[in-house]
């Protein structure tokens, strides 16, 4: 295991990526899909509005992007901090 200061920096960077991801996670589902739907009502998508699209399709697609982005960023971070699996 590498030294503790590097591990601390690694963990802080990880928590930062998690926090940003969770803000987006909440924004697309609880935000665009439910609470902010009235504000998006003007943007029409195929017979309904953007909020309906986020609630039934868009949020799932964003969730997918979030998980793959996290895996990709963390793999880079593992290598940068020398904590990747040999």
């Amino acid at each position, binding site marked *: 295991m590498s030294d503790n200061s590097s591990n601390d920096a690694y963990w802080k960077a990880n928590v930062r990526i998690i926090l940003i991801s969770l803000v987006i996670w909440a924004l697309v589902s609880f935000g665009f*899909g*439910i609470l902010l739907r009235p504000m998006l009502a003007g943007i029409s998508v195929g017979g309904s509005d953007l909020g309906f699209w986020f*609630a*039934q399709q868009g*949020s799932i*697609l964003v969730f*997918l992007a979030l998980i793959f982005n996290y895996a990709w960023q963390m793999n880079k971070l*593992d290598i940068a901090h020398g904590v*990747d699996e040999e």
Partner: protein
Amino acid sequence: MSQFAINLLFVGASFALYIGIAIWARAGSTSEFYAAGRGVHPVTNGMATAADWMSAASFISMAGLIAFTGYDNSSFLMGWTGGYVLLALLLAPYLRKFGKFTVSEFIGDRFYSPTARIVAVVCLIVASTTYVIGQMTGVGVAFGRFLEVSNTAGLLIGACVVFAYAVFGGMKGVTYTQVAQYCVLITAYTIPAVFISLQLTGTPIPALGLFGDHVASGEPLLAKLDAVVTELGFKEYTAHHADTLNMVLFTLSLMIGTAGLPHVIMRFFTVPKVSDARWSAGWTLVFIALLYLTAPAVGAMARLNISELMWPNGGISGEAVTTEQIANDPEYDWMATWQKTGLLDWEDKNGDGKIQFYNDKNEDLQAMAAEKGWEGNELTKFNRDILVLANPEIANLPSWVIGLVAAGGLAAALSTAAGLLLAISSAVSHDLIKGAINPSISEKNELLSARIAMGVAIAVATWLGLNPPGFAAQTVALAFGLAAASIFPALMMGIFSTKINNTGAVAGMLAGLTVTLVYIFLHKGWLFIPGTNSFTDADPLLGTIKSTSFGAIGAAVNFAVAYIVAGMTKETPAEIKALVESVRVPRGAGAAQDH
């Protein structure tokens, strides 16, 4: 070939495949039994996890839930997928690094407390057992419907098949069977949806068809659907009618509950590396999304099809379908088929030879009914669970598609049942027998006890499936509530905070568990005994918060109590802090593989 022979062929072939895999993938060690030897490729594990997670509820019920409620039930779509973001970012990689076999083992070690481990085991067993009842009843019903055998015989055949691959193969056998089951269930779900999407919108991709144009009218599909259902006196499909606070909490509870379900978490112990656990969570959601992006399209299109079949002559201003047409027109054959099951029924109340389908609780429609001499809605029963199963018949699809859907429904129920039974048997053999009763047990005997525990769990689940307690339908809320209020917060705090100590964790879990159970019991009856409830979900204790939405609040109580109690009691020992530090970095996951 008769429909019965076709169904038998599809179901029989899929079962032969599962048995074949069982023979090929036998488990020889506890590592293979609990974690498939940690040699499962992340994409393979993703597929198996998707089948493990998608139960009879996802396959059979979800499209119906959306079809008859519309936008308001989007909670299921967001909640059951959004949980994977939490799982991928907050739990899966760290629990894989920890490198043990069960969820309760992590809780016991991290909080250096056998009590915490036992609390986790009890939550796990209760949540998984209640969940498995629904799967076993589903297996019985699907057999009864498609193979014309009794529910009992169907359930026993299903139980024997699960026994074959789960008892001998353990996690290894279950994993590879689940991959096959995923392929069967996704094909069965997608093919009818593609046909129906082509018929209605001209596009072969149902998810695009949902937001595309309705070919017959040229209008957008959703606009057409809104017009059709409001004309019949129902609520607008795409509009928001539900209480917003309850919808948010319900979605959040489903997300946290999904991330806390032990049978899903333990699947991430099977991949070789920490980075594989991260990728694998992504692949899991890819395979789940294939069904979850199709489901709302299936729901909307089926709702439109049914409305138009009941009013074939230009909507409600034209004439309703006649009873003669229902009896003779092949397009309506499915109605007679499903009437036999008791899940669909109609009655010509005013004796005009036609079946008027409308919302007889809507005042405008009551006025119209008075004028035209209708005496209430005549499509008297339409169980929403038949929607996916009857869909191929409603859309007049070839009979092999119906056989495929039968095999798909069984695959969904069996794969989830096997995953749950595995979670139960490893909790019993690894956490209770090896962890508490006889720690010096040899590997050979532990493997034997895991197999016996699995056999007993299957027997109990079969018995409960044959004699479902009256509360079977309510228990899904219980499973999610327990997972959300007890397991998820304990795991998350164990990884993300070094401050939470043994007393804090146990107090938090018990507090979250207690408030959630009390809230559910207050609304559904104590131990689900009818009549002992003080409130109903129509008029809940706290504002508009239904008992099914309470898991998120239970989780918040768990977090708060754990922090307060941990702040007042003895600090976490240095060696536990070191354990947390090591769980946080991926390096060394290989070395931590075995005990």
